[in-house]
């Protein structure tokens, strides 16, 4: 599903060149549930941005779902994000003046979806347990519910992979557990999940933990907490 080879990413800070990623190689197979763990500043956000097609590597190759992504232009990357990737953010990023279903359909607007968008959004929201919150504004929802709306938005285009950046970071522990439960359910039906976190407890829920240090992968191991799927 994801095949990353010798990925470098340098940023220009004034006259200074800062190397954030220094040769990351990584494979994630279809249907895997992976955590990427690192203390902040070790390159995990940069890696996530590249995996999410929001950023381009300085060098190295990235093949997503069989398509080479590293040389794509901005429009093609937008298309990849729209088709292949569902984002879940720490701070939800719901548009405050739009109702739950209007937020959920946003990815459909930028694709070639034809049909009743609201109908589709309602079905996804139902599946995620928010059938009675379809016409609510984000401010009328709890944090856990808001994150679930964001997950519905990530799912609506049936993406190949869900990228979650500290999905439980802004939630209390019970809402956090609820969100992780949904992730397990999604994993159970075959969705590829990548969760970036610095929370050990969250990371341990995945099948496999990738640890990063100083722009490189320092450790990559199965957790064994789930059914024995080897990495």
């Amino acid at each position: 599903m994801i095949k990353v080879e010798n990925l470098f990413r340098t940023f220009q800070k004034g006259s200074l060149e800062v190397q954030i990623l220094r040769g990351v190689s990584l494979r994630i197979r279809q249907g895997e549930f992976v955590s990427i763990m690192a203390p902040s500043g070790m390159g995990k956000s940069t890696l996530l941005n590249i995996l999410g097609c929001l950023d381009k590597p300085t060098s190295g190759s990235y093949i997503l779902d069989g398509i080479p992504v590293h040389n794509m232009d901005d429009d093609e990357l937008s298309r990849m994000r729209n088709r292949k990737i569902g984002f879940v953010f720490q701070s939800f990023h719901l548009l405050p003046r739009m109702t739950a279903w209007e937020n959920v359909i946003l990815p459909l607007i930028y694709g070639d979806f034809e049909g009743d968008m609201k109908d589709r959004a309602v079905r996804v929201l139902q599946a995620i347990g928010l059938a009675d919150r379809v016409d609510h504004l984000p401010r009328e929802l709890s944090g856990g519910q808001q994150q679930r709306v964001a997950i519905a938005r990530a799912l609506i285009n049936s993406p190949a992979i869900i990228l979650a950046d500290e999905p439980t970071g802004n939630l209390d522990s019970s809402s956090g557990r609820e969100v992780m439960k949904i992730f397990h359910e999604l994993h159970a039906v075959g969705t590829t999940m990548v969760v970036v976190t610095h929370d050990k407890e969250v990371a341990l829920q995945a099948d496999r933990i990738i640890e990063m240090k100083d722009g490189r992968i320092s450790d990559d191991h199965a957790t064994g907490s789930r059914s024995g799927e080897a990495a």
Partner: protein
Amino acid sequence: MMRMLRMGRQALKAIATNRTRTVLMMLGVLIGVATLTVIASSVIGARAEVLARVEKFGLQQIGVIAGAGRKPGVPQPVCTSLKLEDAQAILSEIANVKDVCPEIVRTDFPVKRGNKSTYASIVATNSSWASMWGTGPETGRFLSQEDEVYRARVAVIGKTIRRDLFEYEDPVGKQILINNNPFEIIGVLEPRGTSPRGDDLDNQIVIPVSTGQKRVFRQDYLFAVKVEVSDSSEMSRTVNDVREFLRERHNLREGVEDDFTIVTPTLIMTMMSSLSTTFSLFLILVSGISLVVGAIVIANIMFMAVNERRGEIGLRRAVGARKRDILVQFLLEAVCVATTGGILGIALGLLGLKLLSGYMKLPAAIMWQPIVAGLVSAIVVGLIAGIQPAKKAANSHPIEALR
């Protein structure tokens, strides 16, 4: 196309959900377009009105006004050199002159009947006056040539005088006092309305010029002579003939200025067109300034909105919006807001015009030109004001915007 429609819906939603911002953005364009509509409509209307009057005044007529460098309707010191004999001589001596109409007009003249009194414009003239001005008696008769020869104390009155002095009585055959001279009323004029300067043309009393000179004004000079030519293609030659003729009669040597002013229809038209050019320039300036202000307001608020909505932009980019999609959305927002402001401005302008025309007797027809101009300039303002903020929005980096 489908995608464009979706962008449009997103833009409309953003406009509809942030009302305060939308109203603020609209205000500048609204005021600009409203001013444009009001000024353009009244200028175009006034011009049409004046042209119609010039045509009615007649392309076969020229005016000779006593005194140098006069403009019609502008009061200046009295000049006593233009005489009734001049008018008669113009008619008998100059070829191509069909008719003349001497005029002495005095406004705010006291008129009495019994215990009722009013102030009227007294017009001392001859029997040609009615046809020259394209009017006539509604009841009774107009002045005749005998009236003039016998200095008859007869008067033809306008509707306003009739109302003020006679109410519902038939005035014909009754007497009124003009400057303590008794006059017999022989007719009532058709209603004539208001002059371009706003004078009530029905507040006039027309008397024979000879009677006026001897009994009312006690003066031997005229204020103006209207001359009608037979062949209007010979107009400029006739004008020249009249000028030479009068200079000779007034013993003006070479190099001395005319002591009269000749007004021709072409002169009036030239005056009008230069006047309307000035008006048009003024119009362009005023509405231009307000539209520029409107554009600046929209651009500023849009820039603020782009900063405020960085999260939204980042999120839209993350779920697959291309730069172009963001650009189109923000540009559409600006254009929609400006256009709505424009439509409201046109409505407000037309409403204001209606009120204004009620108060000020402005000729105010609803015309398509100001409406189209208002709408087009609103759209242009939206595009110009929106393009830079929209570009900024489209080029903001999704990662930065999501932070």
